[in-house]
């Protein structure tokens, strides 16, 4: 557990970057610090490993004041990942990852062996081990940065906008990877970003800071979206928050109605309405329009592209947001529900989603 007790940071030039911050960061969870540029996120994060010294107040890690340890010793027990990774250009990927264990006295060979395992952990092929940072893509560098921070298996990981310098697709990959990693490792992660979507996607809890280093709200993402405490937070959380809040509600209970399907290559019957066309493994290929006049076999050229798919596995139903989106984006107005293998299991309509939402609201599951 990391505890900020009325921590203030005033820089030499008089800038108050963090003002009387009280914050309790839970063990084994991802806590995201988010807020506009210059609001003191980086400063707060760097006070935890004493890269910045607090002007007043106390920071406790597992109940112990961080000032009771020498900075270097403290930092060796805390993973640190920054924007652009900050890899050492003169060292190979493997030696970059092995840095902290070697600092801590692990034998070089053992540290390298551990580093190789970490390549697997962060989803990098082992062939990259002998490369130098300059020979990696931005996304790969960032993964190496994460592996390097994990090398000494620290319980706490500090991450300062680690994914903000890569393109959106890669960023999405890296976020998924972090969530997967976290589900296996259960670290205490403090994650800084200025991107509210990233905060909501990754955070178990999100702390919104306002400029001047004041804590505006500290809550779960669902509560933040549903009940921002003031206009600043509401503005920061952004538009469409009602819609995005659906992402936190389970679509369990949404009716999946049977859907008539045709297989590609089959002779077309007389069409009576929108029909889903599937391949031989029942994976959806597109829609046959109600007005279509296909004669003979159905070919791909006859199909209208479908919308997003709603994955309704029996074990883990998707979110209300996924279900609603599939319905709204479908040309027929009916979203296609598929199972984990991608085979069509039925259709969902916007109506059925809203009915479940209504029920959830009445039962008090949704804060209102």
């Amino acid at each position, binding site marked *: 557990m990391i505890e900020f007790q009325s921590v203030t940071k005033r820089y030499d030039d008089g800038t108050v970057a963090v003002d009387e911050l009280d914050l309790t960061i839970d063990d084994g969870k991802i806590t995201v610090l988010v807020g506009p540029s210059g609001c003191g996120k980086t400063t707060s994060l760097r006070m935890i490993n004493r890269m910045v010294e607090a002007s007043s107040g106390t920071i406790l890690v597992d109940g112990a004041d961080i000032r009771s340890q020498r900075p270097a010793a403290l930092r060796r027990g805390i993973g640190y990942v920054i924007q652009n990774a*900050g890899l050492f250009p003169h060292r190979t990927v493997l030696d970059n990852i092995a840095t902290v264990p070697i600092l801590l006295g692990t034998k070089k060979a053992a540290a390298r062996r551990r580093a190789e395992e970490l390549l697997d952990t962060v989803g990098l092929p082992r062939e990259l081990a002998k490369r130098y940072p300059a020979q990696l893509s931005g996304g790969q560098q960032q993964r190496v940065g994460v592996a390097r921070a994990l090398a000494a298996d620290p319980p706490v990981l500090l991450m300062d906008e680690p994914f903000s310098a890569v393109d959106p697709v890669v960023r999405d990959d890296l976020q998924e990877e972090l969530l997967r990693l976290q589900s296996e490792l259960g670290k205490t992660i403090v994650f800084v970003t200025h991107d509210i979507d990233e905060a909501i996607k990754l955070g178990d809890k999100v702390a919104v800071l306002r400029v001047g280093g004041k804590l505006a709200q500290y809550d779960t993402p669902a509560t933040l979206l549903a009940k921002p405490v003031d206009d600043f937070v509401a503005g920061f959380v952004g538009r469409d928050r009602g819609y995005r809040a659906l992402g936190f509600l389970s679509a369990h209970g949404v009716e999946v109605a049977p859907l008539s399907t045709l297989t590609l290559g089959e002779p077309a019957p007389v069409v009576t309405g929108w029909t889903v066309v599937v391949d031989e493994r029942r994976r959806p290929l597109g829609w046959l329009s109600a007005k279509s006049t296909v004669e003979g076999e159905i070919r791909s050229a006859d199909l209208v592209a479908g919308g997003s798919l709603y994955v309704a596995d029996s074990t883990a139903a998707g979110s209300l947001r996924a279900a609603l989106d599939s319905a709204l984006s479908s040309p027929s107005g009916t979203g296609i529900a598929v199972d984990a293998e991608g085979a069509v299991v039925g259709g969902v309509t916007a109506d059925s989603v809203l009915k479940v939402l209504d029920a959830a609201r009445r039962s008090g599951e949704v804060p209102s």
Partner: protein
Amino acid sequence: MSIFDQISAWLSDPDHWKTTLGIAGIPQRLAEHVQYTVLAVVIAAVIAIPLGAYIGHTGRGGTLVVGIVNSFRALPELGLLILLVLVMGLALALEAVTIALVLLAIPVLLAGTYAGVRNVDRAAVDAARGMGMSEWQVLVKVELPNALPLIFGALRSATLQVIATATIAAVVSLGGFGRYVIDGNSQREFDQMAAGAVLIAALAIVAELLLAGVQWLVVSPGLRKNSRGRARVR
């Protein structure tokens, strides 16, 4: 006989390769020239590299370094040499010349080391501290290895400058290859002058190639130009 034939005749004359009757042969002149150069470069490096690294690491005094380097570039080598020899006396000519050479090499090395350390990716340095390296470890394990290309660049410039200035040291009656140019000039023996010039150029080129070779061996492959164009600093 063309001048090129004269040079090769002069160079292949066995008499010029032996030291006889107190007249130094090519090997001895080479040894002298190398001795002046190595001594001066080593002394300058011992002073300038740690100082440059310290200034680069702390960032304090950077403008001073740049100022010193710029003003030294304007100083005429010949004048510095002559003045130091006169002040210290001809009996201490070797010491005077060494001091002059060291003084010329220090600014180059200081600037190169300073720029090298200063130019290391700030994110890498930040990460190094964040991982729990001590200041000394940050300098030795991260900043200096990354500064090596620029430090070597400075070492090469400094060595070339010292070789060139050591040539001029013949004016104040020191040995080295410069003697052939000075003596050839005063004795109106152009073949000797030209052969001396060829020897000097060859020495400089060999020294440059040697240092480039050492740099290739010592600097991490991750820092080579083709892997990512790094800003060059003069």
